[in-house]
């Protein structure tokens, strides 16, 4: 059962990197002015980051990791485990973890793992790395989580283009008796697999002649089978169905009240959905910082981006309990209760 705690894990530092190129939703051609304004107001996304050709999730994550090593004075040679979470790897194979091992100069003995997860990915990755570190008695672990999801988006799809954005992150963990336990609660409903999906290019529907043929799927929604297709209504309903019960279950299991965590870091999906979750939990909005307006939906990296964007002035100097909640492709969801004690946390890094 995916409701468990891993003892003795400390977060040393967290860093996020985004491409320097920003797109402004108020300048989007896909919609008329009124619709654009309504979108920015209700969905809450003003700016998105777009990685240029030749920049991959691995580049964003490696940049974040290099900065993190500098900030924490930790050395790559001491990393014993690496988990890389992405849905936009450099290659179909080998996985990004191997590319990162070389680029960062990690030891050959590093336990490497690649995880294909979307917006629940940071929590899944954190749980996986923590569990590996605990089982394999690894002293220091590195979690890389990022996507260049904009490269999967149809330029003629108003249901996805204004939403998605690119980012990569790095988190350093240390096994330490000074570290508390991290508690996790993960879940999934595979019946929701088509709710967020790229249909062609795998092996069920190999890339072929029809893969690039754009279809009209609704007003303002024109995309091909190689593009990311997201069913907005279903994402809303799956999220509302699972996220809050999952968090409540974790809080109960850890004996923590809803008021306990200092901050709730939700995956940044859209303001309507996120405000709905905050209301359902009865949270004060200032307990749920956002990065939607400035960075959009950066797929699996929204949780670290939000932390680096909003908590950079707090985390390095204090002790905070954070409830992390991710949900998305799968349909998967997961929450984690984590102690952040003097955690290195630079502001979001802009590349190039």
């Amino acid at each position: 059962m995916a409701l468990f705690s891993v003892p003795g894990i400390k977060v040393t530092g967290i860093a996020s990197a985004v491409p320097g190129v920003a797109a402004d939703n108020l300048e989007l051609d896909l919609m008329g002015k009124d619709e654009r304004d309504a979108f920015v107001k209700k969905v809450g996304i003003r700016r998105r980051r777009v990685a240029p050709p030749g920049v991959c999730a691995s580049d964003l994550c490696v940049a974040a990791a290099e900065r993190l090593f500098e900030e924490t004075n930790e050395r790559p040679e001491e990393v014993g485990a690496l988990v890389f979470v992405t849905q936009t790897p450099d290659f179909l194979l080998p996985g990004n973890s191997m590319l990162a091992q070389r680029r960062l100069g990690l030891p050959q003995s590093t336990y490497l793992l690649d995880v294909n997860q979307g917006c629940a990915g940071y929590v899944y990755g954190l749980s996986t790395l923590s569990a590996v570190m605990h089982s394999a008695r690894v002293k220091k672990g590195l979690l890389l989580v990022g996507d260049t999801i904009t490269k999967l988006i149809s330029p003629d799809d108003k249901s996805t283009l204004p939403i998605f954005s690119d980012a990569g992150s790095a988190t350093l963990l240390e096994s330490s008796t000074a570290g508390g336990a991290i508690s996790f609660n993960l879940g999934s409903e595979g019946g929701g697999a088509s709710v967020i999906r790229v249909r062609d290019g795998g092996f069920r529907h190999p890339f072929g002649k029809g893969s690039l043929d754009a279809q009209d799927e609704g007003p303002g929604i024109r995309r091909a089978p190689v593009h990311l297709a997201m069913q907005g209504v279903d994402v809303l309903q799956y999220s509302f169905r699972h996220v809050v019960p999952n968090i409540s279950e974790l809080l109960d299991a850890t004996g923590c009240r809803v008021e306990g965590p200092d901050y709730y870091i939700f995956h940044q999906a859209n303001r309507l959905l996120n405000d709905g979750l905050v209301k359902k939990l009865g949270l004060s909005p200032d307990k749920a910082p956002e990065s939607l307006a400035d960075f959009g939906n950066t797929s699996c990296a929204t949780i670290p981006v939000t932390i680096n964007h909003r908590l950079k002035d707090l985390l390095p100097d204090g002790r905070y309990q954070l409830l992390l909640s991710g949900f998305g492709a799968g349909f998967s969801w997961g929450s984690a209760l984590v102690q952040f004690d003097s955690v290195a946390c630079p502001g979001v890094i802009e590349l190039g």
Partner: protein
Amino acid sequence: MSEETFNLQSFIRKLERQFDELPSESLTPDTLFRNFPAWTSLQSLVVLISFDEDYGVTISSEELQGAQTVGDLYNLVKDKRGD
């Protein structure tokens, strides 16, 4: 959840409030809501969230697709409430 009486009239008034700048009494039970220019996929999410918040009901994308009029939406919510 609202303590207000749940009936067609109160449902329609609440629905009108989910639209920006819609004069009240614009919607009738026979209004084909999809023909409204204000009915975008974004607006459909706003309305579905309001159904969840005001009535505690979840409408799936298939159920929504089957509805054509405001009256159909009322019936969907009414059925889900178990009234």
